């Protein structure tokens, strides 16, 4: 079982590095490699040899390197002219800045949502979602002099809605960050 775990781990990692290929293409690569590995594994089992997944995987090399060989034609498609290294550096810097800005932005919104959800428990009258200006604007949050309580939209529902939104924002942020990281 441990052998199979090792193989699945390898394929999972490979899949992550193949993210730049089209999904169908990446799946095809994975399917072929998986078929090869299990073929060899079964042949070893069939002939009474010691089953050695790590030896098989070694032939494929590191997942990152293997994936690189598959995506090299995309990366190499338009190589920047010599001397343009500086521009690449700047681009990388922008991606890194974007990555951390995105992280700060997403997680702080999620944190704020969780915070108001918690505050609603203790100060139900000061926290909530109000429709203001005859429905032309929506105010969500924590107010020192709250809008009239009877116009509050969600009541106790505010808490689960805010928590759910926070989780959603966290999930989305993480997804975006993963994509950014892959392209860094």
């Amino acid at each position, binding site marked *: 079982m441990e052998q199979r775990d090792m193989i699945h781990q390898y394929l999972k990692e490979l899949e992550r590095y193949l993210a730049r290929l089209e999904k169908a293409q990446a799946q095809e690569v994975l399917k072929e490699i998986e078929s090869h590995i299990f073929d060899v594994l079964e042949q070893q089992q069939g002939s009474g040899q010691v089953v050695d997944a790590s030896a098989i995987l070694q032939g494929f090399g590191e997942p990152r390197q293997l994936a690189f*060989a598959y995506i090299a034609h995309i990366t190499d498609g338009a190589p920047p002219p010599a001397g343009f290294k500086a521009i690449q550096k700047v681009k990388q810097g922008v991606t890194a800045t974007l990555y951390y800005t995105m992280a700060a932005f997403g997680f702080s919104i999620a944190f704020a949502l969780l915070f108001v959800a918690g505050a609603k428990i203790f100060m139900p009258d000061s926290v909530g979602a109000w429709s203001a200006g005859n429905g032309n604007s929506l105010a969500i949050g924590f107010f020192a002099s709250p809008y009239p309580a009877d116009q509050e939209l969600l009541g106790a529902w505010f808490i689960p809605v805010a928590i759910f939104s926070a989780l959603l924002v966290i999930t989305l942020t993480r997804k975006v960050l993963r994509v950014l990281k892959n392209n860094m």
Partner: protein
Amino acid sequence: MTIEEKEEKTQEKWEVQLRKGTLELVILAALRHRTLYGLELLKLLQSFKSAAITEGTLYPLLDRLKREGIVDAQWVQEGDVRPRKYYSLTTTGHHKLADLITLWRQSVFDIEFLLAHPGPDVLPVQGE
């Protein structure tokens, strides 16, 4: 590093270069009038001293050859075994192989010619 070790290393490098340079020809030759799946092809290549390559070299190369329309690939499911991806040459592949064979034979011919005519005699100019 001793001189022997250095020589061995240089020889190894040359072998690697030679294998790299001839790999495409070797794969196309192996697939001539034959349809093989990856593992079969790998085992076939590994049975030759000068063509032993790893899985990590073979599969991405097959992927490139497929993208270039030199080989065709097809998934085949036989009985209970898991599906396998079989490779064969396309018409373009056959033409490419013919070109590579010409180049290869010329190269072997030239080298053999040089080897067969050591100094100090003047080298007879070819084609005369």
